[in-house]
């Protein structure tokens, strides 16, 4: 598209442009009749532009601009019949001087844009198809096509890309395309057809019809030996040019290897069916019988330098192989298949296995995120979560209804309140007149206090007293723990006072502190004889006597204790 952009630039005056070098490919006239005068003018204009000194384009020139406009108009009109929408939206390019470069460019774009993907598709199709045989020399227009094809598809595509004339190359491609379709073998033609038409409905980015057919064919080959089809393919390939031919043959080479090695039978299968062709005998086939063995040996070293020779051998050996295979019995075919499988499996077991088969694999030993794709098998120790089905709900509701009917609920219950206060003791007042006189009551009280008469203590009183004393002890301890200012031990009221005083003294009038009524008589303080000696004052005889007395008393009190056992 370099030229057209240069043209567009040149059309507008006053712009600097650096023209790209133009490849000149001769213009091809189309089949449809053109206005010859206009065509000549256009061609003249094009020639003029191509011959112009590139430096001239740097400065704006009116005649170059006019030439550019004429040339682009010519190209446009020759391209217009090829556009996809017939009649094209704009039959001729409007190139009045009034039109700006942008406007002319947009007109061209209007025509060219829908064409480009169409052309690309054609190109891709051409590339994918195996190059067909020599098309018959039909028209001079096609001769060009032949030349291009022989150069190889890559160069062809280059040509297409570097095109100067859209319509010219377009024309070539179309013609080639049709010829390819005519000349191809059966299968390839089918493939092309499928490409063109069948793909529309079924194909998407996953499913490709040609891949499908390839796969099916491969499968069939494996199943049935594939003699017929392969021969045909080879027949087609024999016409191929070197580069592609070598690749394919080497691939087939490798496939054939196993069969070659284990080939025991040596059938000279001439009468191996009706697949004998002219080419087998008159093109390369006459080497077949002689060189078969050598060919097979050569095959083992499969990267040969003598490419061409090996290729020949390959081709003829393939043919020979096919013939042999057709003559094999089913048992032998199965054996061959088995051997192939064995080979495959042996090869696989020699390679390192995938990480899933490798036992303990840490994260560093396997590719990143590979554990996410694999379905790992864990033993789940957890019971799965319950699925709430109708039955579950029904059973729950059954249970609930039963409980309601029984009124058996697990509600929170109100607690039994602990009494915060002791229950009031209601003393019942007995209103009958007491039988005992007042003096008798006083007598009883006095007797109790003096300890003369035994108090009628009941068990409950004892227990109560004990409980009382325990409680007081606890209170004392709590007070000690909780108060900063500790209250001293309370006076326990039932401390009995020893009255070691005669009755007379109790009635003393003088105050207690002063009176000596509580005073004890000396003999009440101390009983015994006068001379009491201290330890220090004792004489030794005295001490001995004291000790002897002590021992006597001790012996008397501990008479019943058994004698110490003698240690043996």
């Amino acid at each position, binding site marked *: 598209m370099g030229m057209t952009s240069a043209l567009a630039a040149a059309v507008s005056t006053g712009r600097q442009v650096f023209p790209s070098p133009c490849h000149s490919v001769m213009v091809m006239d189309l089949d449809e009749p053109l206005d010859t005068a206009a065509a000549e003018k256009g061609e003249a204009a094009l020639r003029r532009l191509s011959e112009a000194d590139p430096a001239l384009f740097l400065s704006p020139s009116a005649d170059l601009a006019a030439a550019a406009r004429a040339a682009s108009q010519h190209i446009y009109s020759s391209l217009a019949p090829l556009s996809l929408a017939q009649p094209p939206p704009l039959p001729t390019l409007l190139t009045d001087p009034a039109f700006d470069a942008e406007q002319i460019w947009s007109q061209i774009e209007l025509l060219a844009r829908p064409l480009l993907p169409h052309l690309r598709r054609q190109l891709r199709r051409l590339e994918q198809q195996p190059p067909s045989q020599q098309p018959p020399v039909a028209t001079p227009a096609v001769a060009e096509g032949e030349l291009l094809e022989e150069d190889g598809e890559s160069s062809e595509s280059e040509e297409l890309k570097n095109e100067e004339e859209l319509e010219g190359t377009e024309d070539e491609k179309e013609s080639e395309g049709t010829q390819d379709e005519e000349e191809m073998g059966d299968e390839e033609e089918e493939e092309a057809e499928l490409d063109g038409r069948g793909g529309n409905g079924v194909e998407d980015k996953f499913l490709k019809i040609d891949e499908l057919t390839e796969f099916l064919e491969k499968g069939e080959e494996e199943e049935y030996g594939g003699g017929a089809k392969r021969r045909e393919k080879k027949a087609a390939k024999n016409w191929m040019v070197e580069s592609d031919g070598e690749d394919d043959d080497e691939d087939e080479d490798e496939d054939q290897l196993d069969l070659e090695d284990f080939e025991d039978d040596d059938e000279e299968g001439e009468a191996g069916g009706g697949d004998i062709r002219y080419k087998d005998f008159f093109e390369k086939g006459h080497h077949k019988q002689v060189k078969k063995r050598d060919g097979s040996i050569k095959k083992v070293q499969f990267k040969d330098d003598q490419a061409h020779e090996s290729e020949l051998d390959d081709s003829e050996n393939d043919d020979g192989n096919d013939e042999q295979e057709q003559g094999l019995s089913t048992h032998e075919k199965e054996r061959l298949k088995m051997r192939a499988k064995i080979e495959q499996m042996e090869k696989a077991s020699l390679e390192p296995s995938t990480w899933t088969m490798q036992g303990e694999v840490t994260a560093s030993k396997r590719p990143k995120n590979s554990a996410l794709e694999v379905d790992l098998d864990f033993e789940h120790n957890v019971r799965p979560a319950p699925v709430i089905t109708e039955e579950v709900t029904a059973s729950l509701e059954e249970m609930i209804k039963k409980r309601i009917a029984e009124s058996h609920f697990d509600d*929170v219950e109100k607690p039994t309140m602990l009494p915060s206060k002791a229950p009031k003791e209601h003393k019942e007042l007995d209103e009958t007149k007491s039988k005992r006189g007042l003096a008798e009551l006083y007598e009883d009280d006095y007797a109790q206090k003096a300890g003369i008469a035994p108090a009628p203590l009941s068990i409950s009183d004892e227990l109560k007293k004990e409980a009382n004393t325990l409680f007081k002890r606890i209170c004392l301890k709590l007070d000690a723990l909780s108060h900063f200012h500790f209250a001293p031990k309370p006076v326990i009221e039932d401390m009995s006072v020893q009255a070691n005083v005669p009755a007379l003294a109790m009635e003393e009038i003088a105050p207690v502190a002063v009176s000596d009524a509580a005073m004890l008589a000396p003999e009440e303080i101390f009983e015994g004889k006068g001379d009491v000696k201290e330890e220090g004052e004792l004489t030794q005889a005295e001490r001995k006597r004291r000790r002897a007395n002590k021992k006597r008393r001790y012996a008397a009190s501990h008479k019943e204790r058994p004698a110490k056992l003698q240690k043996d």
Partner: protein
Amino acid sequence: MLRRNIRQRREYLYSKSLEGPQRALFEKKRRIRAALEEGKPIPTELRNEEHDLRRQIDLEDHERQVPKSIVDNEYATATVREPKILLTTSRNPSAPLTQFVKELKVVFPNSQRMNRGGQVISEIVESCRSHDITDLILVHEHRGQPDGLIVSHLPHGPTAYFGLLNVVTRHDIKDRKAMGKMSEAYPHLILDNFSTQIGERTATILKHLFPVPKPDSKRIITFANRDDYISFRHHVYEKPGGPKSIDLKEVGPRFELRLYQIKLGTVEQNEAQSEFVLRPYINAAKKQKTLGA
């Protein structure tokens, strides 16, 4: 207030530590009492202590006979006053989660919902304590589906962590008019198949979220344990044709709870002791039934 809390917590831990020997003592007393009642001789291992224990037995009344367990400790005052619940979510809740929490607010009587905002858990717990709230419930989610429930009893009490499964909210049900309004009376509770010790513990935790109902209340909340999955169901019943026919109408959300942890502190105490932790990766996990047979 802080010192009181600390002291109370220490008391609680101390009484928990005493629980073991106290239980043993109770066992001995019980055996002596049984032997005395039946007239059989006292077991030989108890003869030394028999004298002291006999006196204690005599002094006991029926209240003191049963040994105090920690469970009773935590929920002792729960029955006296009604529970007060605060519901909140994890941070940045999605719309379905907030809807679910609103439904739970209606399910639990005496409850309040609070927006989480950017509060920290310790702040929330502090404010709950100062407002005399008894239980804090947190709801967590995963991509709109509620998937976690944390029930924390507040003074110092236990925290139970549940996972939620198969949540069906009232909002999901299209025909909301047919369901009608949810009754807000205090519900009756059904706690089915909580037979082990941990099951009993879970039952008390769930039970004390609800206040004492009136006997004639028509609202029923069910926690049914099947295979360690607790099903929550909320029904309203009617007895249209006499006492025998019962017409159940399901109201309110339904979900499955799965207990995975019980801690002996509140939510904010990370280092609190765990009473129970689910261990699903041990080999015997399939056979274990922690909540009930």
